[in-house]
């Protein structure tokens, strides 16, 4: 709707379209790497270390907070290697495709009544569609490296991503039925103002009524992100890092950023769809104050969801390829189909 006024609400002044666009671009250009940094630091470095009763980075900056910055700067200085046999163009573009996929998801994620880049009518649908772009990037990387491990990893990754794309899409359907819209902002407000069987004390965060959906979504996200227990595409003990095997320096870091950026984006998507997004069930949703409080609320929720994702990651061994597909096709997809029908019935009957 009012993409142009996104920031104006915040500043309580009319901001021209081009200015708001630039601000948004700037914000997101910062948010994606920052999100990757935060997740990487908080979870990959610190939470993992704590779970293993150690400390994680301590030397670079206080408590190692600058570790990932150092990593980034270090990777900038690494030599850029194209293997002889690699398909150079495709090899170079693959990380770009993955990164594009990540960036595009952020376009629709709302963090406040006006703090959204573009409020699309088909929000969820769009988010799911662009998130599926990364498959192409991964297949490109796997193919262009001209390396067996990479190709195997690429194929595995693609097979896995598409297998779990479906549960992801279908799990969202329950929310869409309940909210009756694809627009993420409306989904947020539907949750804030909703009622559970006539009781609206805490609104209706869909995690309560759509628990099956949330569960499927979470599992699917775990797989989409190729996190353990679904990390066969990058299994180092089997295929030494899979499609990333030939990537050096910053190109590698782009995959890394893509992975964690997407993790953050999916965490945000999950909190918008199931946890009520930026809103609180009390208070005036249109109030501009939510433009400031919203991002904070979102951040807390996203971190909670990511904590869950990474908790699984550090606890479980990985499944085998066939078990993974079996889980998707024989359990998650039927379950989500049933969930759709049941939700539909409730929606129509109630």
């Amino acid at each position, binding site marked *: 709707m009012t993409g142009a006024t996104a920031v104006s609400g915040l500043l309580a002044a009319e901001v021209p379209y081009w200015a708001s666009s630039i601000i948004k671009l700037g914000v997101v250009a910062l948010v994606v790497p920052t999100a990757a940094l935060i997740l990487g630091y908080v979870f990959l470095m610190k939470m993992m270390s704590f779970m293993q009763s150690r400390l994680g980075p301590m030397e670079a900056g206080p408590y190692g907070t600058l570790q990932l910055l150092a990593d980034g700067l270090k990777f900038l200085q690494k030599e850029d290697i194209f293997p002889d*046999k690699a398909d150079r163009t495709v090899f170079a573009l693959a990380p770009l495709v993955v990164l594009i996929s990540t960036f595009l998801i952020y376009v629709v994620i709302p963090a406040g009544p006006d703090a959204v880049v573009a409020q699309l*009518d088909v929000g969820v649908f769009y988010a799911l569609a662009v998130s*599926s772009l990364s498959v*192409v990037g991964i297949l490109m990387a796997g*193919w262009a490296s*001209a390396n067996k491990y990479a190709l195997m990893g690429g194929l595995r990754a*693609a097979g896995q991503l*598409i297998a779990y794309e479906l549960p992801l899409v279908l799990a969202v359907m329950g929310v869409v039925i309940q909210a009756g819209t694809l627009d993420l902002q409306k989904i947020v407000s539907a949750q804030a103002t909703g009622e559970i069987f006539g009781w609206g004390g805490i609104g209706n965060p869909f995690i309560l009524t759509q628990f099956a959906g949330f569960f499927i979504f979470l599992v699917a996200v775990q797989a989409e992100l190729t996190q353990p227990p679904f990390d066969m595409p990058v299994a180092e003990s089997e295929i030494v890092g899979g499609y990333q095997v030939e990537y050096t320096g910053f190109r590698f870091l782009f995959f890394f950023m893509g992975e964690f950026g997407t993790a953050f984006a999916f965490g945000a998507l999950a909190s918008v769809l199931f946890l009520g997004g930026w809103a609180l069930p009390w208070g005036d949703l249109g109030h501009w104050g939510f433009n400031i409080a919203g991002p904070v609320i979102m951040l807390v929720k996203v971190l909670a969801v990511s904590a869950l994702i990474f908790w699984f990651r550090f606890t479980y061994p990985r499944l085998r390829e066939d078990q993974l597909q079996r889980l998707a096709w024989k359990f998650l997809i039927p379950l989500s189909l049933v969930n759709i029908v049941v939700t539909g019935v409730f929606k129509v009957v109630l």
Partner: protein
Amino acid sequence: MIAEHVAFGIIAAVMVASALRVVTTRDIVHAALYLVIVLAGVAALFLLVGAEFTGITQVLIYIGAVIVLFLFGIMLTRSDFDQDAETDHKRKFPAVLTALLLLAVMIGALVDRFEDIELDPTPQTTAQVSDELFSQYIVPFEAVSVLLLAALIGAIVIARREEGG
């Protein structure tokens, strides 16, 4: 309106160039990737004329799924990373001729007929699409499911046969 025309021009140019590369490049993977560009261009065009839902569908189905299918197909049928098999017929002249003739005919038929009609890019919402689909086109809709089922079974049968053999 100007901006839209410019956007259209850019998209169209990129699309045509990519489409040409699709049919001329010797590397199949490259062809598939050029196809991605064409498909993305199509999606952009859809958005440009306000067909939002179809545009996104184009991305989801074509780029996210069909292309993956293509890439799988390619990777499963190429035995080597740097093998360069012949992809084209030896003599392409008849093909060029046919295509050009067809183009001439169509241009002749279309250009004058719809001159200077400005398209109205009012967005058509998903709800509209849905309402139309579930009222007027309910029978084709159900037919689609049967079609998909048939395709599924057909493909599985074919794939299975091959596995046994």
